[in-house]
């Protein structure tokens, strides 16, 4: 879908921003470009829609060299989302979303109705259509930015640190919604971030760049955490990569104890009439399920379950079925044994 072949970008001042980059971005997947500042990740992204032109090498988009295409036409076929949204301040939200359809010469009514659908799709009320960007919060502007990128339904989207200008709570929300949206849409996405956690959370494939525009490693997030190719990557992904890697392992094969099994703790699990956990109690003391520990399902990650055991007063996480009925418990020791038994893959 998008292919870099020996692409080098040298700026007029002699700086080599990207050095002999060869990389394939798989169709329908999110490929994250991550690395410290000055590593060439943004320059690489901007070479896909010809905002930056390669000094040598070739960038192919859908099989065609970008340098042989009209830049404006090329860009209209590629969705683009940037940090701080980059909306047009003099146009209303609906007209901002319809920017590319207008440029493509769509009938105005069709462009607007598409824009209104997308407004809803990115989770903004229809009443926002007539507002101007300055009347929206940063997070809302970013949603409009995503809607604008989707308006002409391009097969490819470029996202340049789209969520880094919003606060952490909003960022987590936007990330979750973005993943949900991508599940429906299956776009080929190139996503730039400097945040390794975001890269690991969002990427199907993560390309780690290092200073000087070199590619340090391209791998799935789990493999990146399990087997960093070199010290730079190991250092960049961080020291707690072992714990973070648990985020990719589901709790579906984790063995549990029956709910009523005797345990080495004074805390007793309170269940309601239907068998749903209410909280923990010990000699008149109580802790609600929210404040102490919590429940998980087989769809949650081992990292989540481990965290639950650490915050539960009894040192135990409670598994529930789809009706919320408790059907098993697990403690840290059981999780540790489970991880130990599961051979760690270091197959490179």
């Amino acid at each position: 879908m998008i292919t870099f072949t020996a692409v080098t970008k040298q700026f007029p001042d002699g700086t080599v921003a990207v050095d002999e980059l060869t990389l394939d971005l798989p169709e329908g997947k999110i490929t994250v470009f991550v690395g410290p500042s000055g590593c060439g990740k943004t320059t690489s992204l901007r070479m896909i829609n010809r905002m930056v032109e390669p000094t040598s090498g070739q960038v192919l988009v859908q099989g065609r060299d970008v340098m042989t295409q009209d830049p404006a036409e090329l860009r209209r076929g590629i969705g683009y989302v940037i940090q701080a949204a980059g909306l047009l301040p003099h146009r209303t939200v609906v007209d901002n979303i319809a920017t590319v359809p207008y440029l493509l010469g769509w009938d105005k009514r069709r462009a607007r109705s598409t824009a209104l659908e997308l407004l809803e799709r990115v989770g903004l009320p229809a009443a926002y259509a007539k507002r101007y960007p300055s009347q929206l919060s940063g997070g809302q502007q970013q949603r409009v930015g995503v809607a604008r990128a989707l308006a002409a339904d391009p097969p490819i989207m470029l996202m340049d640190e789209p969520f880094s200008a919003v606060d952490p709570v909003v960022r987590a929300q936007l990330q979750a919604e973005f993943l949900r949206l991508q599940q429906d849409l299956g776009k080929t996405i190139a996503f730039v971030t400097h945040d390794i956690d975001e890269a690991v959370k969002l990427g199907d494939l993560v390309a780690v760049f290092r200073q000087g525009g070199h590619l340090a490693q391209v791998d799935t997030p789990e493999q990146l955490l399990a087997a960093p190719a070199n010290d730079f990557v190991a250092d960049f992904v961080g020291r707690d990569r072992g714990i973070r890697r648990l985020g990719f392992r589901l709790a579906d094969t984790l063995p549990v104890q029956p709910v009523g099994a005797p345990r080495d703790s004074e805390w007793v699990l309170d269940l309601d009439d239907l068998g749903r956990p209410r909280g923990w109690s010990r000699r008149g003391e109580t802790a609600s399920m929210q404040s102490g520990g919590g429940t998980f399902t087989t769809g949650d990650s081992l990292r989540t379950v481990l965290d639950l055991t650490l915050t539960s007063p009894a040192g135990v996480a409670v598994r529930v079925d789809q009706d919320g009925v408790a059907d098993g418990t697990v403690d840290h020791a059981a999780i540790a044994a489970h991880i130990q038994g599961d051979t760690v893959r270091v197959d490179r």
Partner: protein
Amino acid sequence: MLQYLSTSGPAVLSALGQHVVLALLPVLIGLAIALPVGYLAHRFRWLYPPLLSLSSVLYAVPSLALFVVLPVILGTQILDPLNIVVALSVYTVALLVRTVIDGLASVPTAVTAAATAVGFRPLGLLLRVELPIAVPVILAGLRVATVSNVSLVSVGALLGVGGLGALFTDGLQRNYLAPIITGIVLSVLLALVLDTAIVGVQRVLTPWSRVGSR
């Protein structure tokens, strides 16, 4: 006063009409010249310093001197209203070139970069993104130029063409206050009306600049 107005009404009205034309025509001509010149200076940065110096120098030329010198340069009669129009156009250009450059510079680079990245071509970018966003700054300059032209037209009266300015020379020569007062009141009113009209145009063109940001 009333007697003056009743006898000289038609003359006053024609002076007012001439004043409007002499003040506004240069604004339109000046804007038409300043827009492309300002755009060039915005696009090619090296043009910016010389253009700015040139416009400052032009603006510093005394108006009366310009009114007198222009006929020699243009080959026109000293009483030709064209002299006034050309002179005031020069001032308007001098004022507006800077305004247009500032206006285009007021467009955030993030906005132009994003607009380019979604597929605007240079001309579309200028007409549909940069100029609309620059409108508040450009119109602010246009208000200054318009009001200043309204007052400068009167200077032309010393040469015999000056719209309402003719009322001042007339009153002074005859030692008669009524035409002077009429001229002053009408000049001020004219400036006010034109200024308000531009503000009105701006309100229509830039609804986005008035919304409260959160």
